């Protein structure tokens, strides 16, 4: 069949030089519509170019033959056999099939009785008769069968098989073969074919629908006709699918109701899809939306909190690092320092060679304590720094007071640092710490002086209160050093009086102020000097 149609098609197609598409097309043609071949067939089934064929047509046939040779390679024996079957005249086979179908007996099913087959066979040619007789036949036979056996009739599986045979009995054998041939050939040839055919352009489709010949010349009309006609008739779901996809994507990606509303606003039909999808997805969308809503606020609070921790964290690290760098010995010394011993004692008694176990034990607790202290100190330092910037310090009594001038404190600290042999170098952060310490000192001193003056029944702080305070300090230091300077206490007495300290530390004009009120000062001096103590005073001032 295919070969028969080729000569006819080949001549007009020679210009297009696309024989393969022609071959496929010929296969698709119905057998009845085909004309008898004008050209002769070779013994192998190949067409011989008709005598009327132009040189182009001959070239086309040559290419066809070469392609066939390439396509039907020996390893495709199965398809080759199919091709041969197809090559055999179809009408003959159809006629043979019809002739044989009347004579051949269909396969006897389990349910069907032998009596059915003769009734069916002659009537298969006509569908109407088959339907009537099949219905009648089984009924009669069913009566007969009832007597014989009820069991084989029970299974209804056999009935649909019979119906199929009845309805499609005529076309079954030839149809399958033809369909298989066409499909196989189509797939085989489609490997190379369709690209050229489409690249050819509209020409490929001319044969498909002759009515559109006019359209091809007017591209605009063609486009419009194809677009509108197909979309309206065949591919309305395309738009729907696209819309649905867009809607689903928007839904999946962004679950916010605002986007949904936007989608509805944009397109009317899409809105329907958009609405329907969320309704179905209600549970899922709600679950998806909630975590997002919760997550965003959950992130913000840590952001607010983190900076504070970040501020604290490096300080802790710095402290811990310094501890680590300092080593065990320092920590051990610090522990004793915490117990209230003076640094000199620490230096003398505590040499770097300490029992490591004790130091390690102490370090753990000490580090934690110091860290806690550092935390508190940090906070207070910050508050103090902020207050210092504002220049407004308020005591616990609610009285505003100025802060000591940093320059004065620095000068004092540098002078004392030089005397203590530290080269007078003080880092700025150390100055801040010293300022904080001095502030605390004055706060503590004010409270103590207040307590002394109130105890004395006065509302004014006198030098006596201050000297009492100093004597207490001197006493404390004297108790610490008593073991060392027991013998030297009274000798040093004269130099450890507050006046002696003042003469050593204070400038002359301030000493004059101290001396100006002779009675008061003399009293204080007597009291201070008369006090049994001040042995360590000299050491503290000197060292």
């Amino acid at each position, binding site marked *: 069949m295919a070969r028969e149609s080729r000569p006819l098609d080949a001549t007009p197609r020679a210009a297009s030089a696309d024989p393969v598409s022609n071959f496929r097309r010929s296969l698709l043609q119905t057998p009845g519509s085909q004309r008898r071949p004008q050209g002769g067939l070779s013994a192998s089934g190949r067409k011989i170019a008709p005598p009327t064929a132009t040189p182009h047509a001959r070239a086309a046939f040559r290419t066809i033959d070469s392609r066939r040779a390439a396509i039907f390679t020996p390893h495709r024996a199965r398809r080759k056999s199919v091709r041969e079957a197809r090559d055999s005249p179809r009408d003959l086979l159809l006629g043979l099939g019809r002739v044989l179908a009347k004579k051949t007996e269909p396969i006897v099913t389990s349910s069907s009785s032998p009596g059915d087959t003769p009734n069916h066979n002659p009537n298969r040619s006509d569908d109407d008769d088959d339907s009537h007789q099949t219905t009648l036949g089984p009924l009669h036979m069913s009566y007969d069968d009832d007597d014989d056996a009820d069991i084989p009739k029970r299974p209804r599986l056999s009935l649909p098989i019979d119906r199929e045979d009845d309805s499609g009995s005529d076309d079954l054998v030839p149809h399958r073969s033809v369909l298989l041939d066409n499909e196989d050939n189509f797939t085989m040839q489609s490997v190379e074919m369709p690209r050229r055919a489409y690249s050819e352009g509209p020409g490929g489709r001319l044969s498909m629908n002759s009515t559109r010949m006019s359209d091809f010349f007017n591209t605009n009309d063609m486009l419009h006709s194809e677009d509108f006609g197909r979309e309206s008739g065949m591919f309305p779901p395309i738009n729907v699918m696209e819309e649905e996809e867009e809607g689903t994507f928007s839904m999946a990606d962004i679950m916010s109701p605002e986007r949904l509303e936007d989608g509805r606003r944009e397109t009317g039909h899409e809105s329907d899809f958009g609405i329907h999808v969320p309704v179905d997805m209600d549970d899922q969308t709600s679950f998806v939306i909630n975590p997002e809503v919760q997550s965003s606020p959950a992130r913000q609070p840590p952001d607010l909190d983190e900076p504070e921790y970040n501020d604290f964290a490096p300080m802790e690290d710095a402290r811990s690092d310094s501890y680590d760098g*300092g080593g065990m010995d320092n920590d051990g*010394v*610090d522990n004793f320092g*915490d117990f*209230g011993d*003076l*640094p000199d004692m620490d*230096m003398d008694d505590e040499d770097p060679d300490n029992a490591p176990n004790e130091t390690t034990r102490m370090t753990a607790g000490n580090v934690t304590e110091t860290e806690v*202290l550092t935390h508190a100190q940090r906070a207070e330092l910050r508050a103090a720094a902020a207050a210092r910037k504002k220049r407004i310090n308020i*005591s616990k*009594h609610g*009285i505003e*007071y*100025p*802060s*000591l001038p940093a320059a*004065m*404190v620095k000068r*004092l*600290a540098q002078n*004392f*640092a030089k005397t*203590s*042999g*530290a080269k007078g*170098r003080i*880092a700025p*952060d*150390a100055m801040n*710490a*010293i300022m*904080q*310490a*001095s502030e*605390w000192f*004055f706060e*503590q001193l004010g*409270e*103590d*002086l*207040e307590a*002394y*003056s*109130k105890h004395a029944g006065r*509302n*004014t*702080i*006198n*030098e006596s*209160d*201050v000297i009492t305070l*100093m004597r*207490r*300090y001197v006493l*404390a230091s004297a108790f610490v050093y008593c073991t060392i300077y027991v013998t030297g206490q009274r000798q040093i007495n004269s130099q450890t009086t507050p006046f002696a*300290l*003042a003469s050593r*530390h204070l400038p002359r004009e301030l000493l004059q102020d101290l001396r100006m009120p002779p009675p*008061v000062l003399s009293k204080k001096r007597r009291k201070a000097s008369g006090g049994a103590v001040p042995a360590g005073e000299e050491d503290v*001032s000197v060292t």
Partner: protein
Amino acid sequence: MPGQKLYPRATVKKIVKAHSNCSVSKNADVMIFLDYMLFMQNLVKEASIEAKKGGERGITARSVKKVTADSLAKFKG
């Protein structure tokens, strides 16, 4: 030091007044400042010792903070 004022007397008086909620007698601030100088001396000395132990050059905030509590406790009435 000669032409320079050692410390602002009025400021010290105000500070002590504010903290003690009491009036300060005429020359008590001198003794107060003397006490403060002793405190500073103690603080800086111990801070320098601490810095030497820690292998630091000069006095740092760490050393000062480490000895502040002790110095304050030592000078508490």
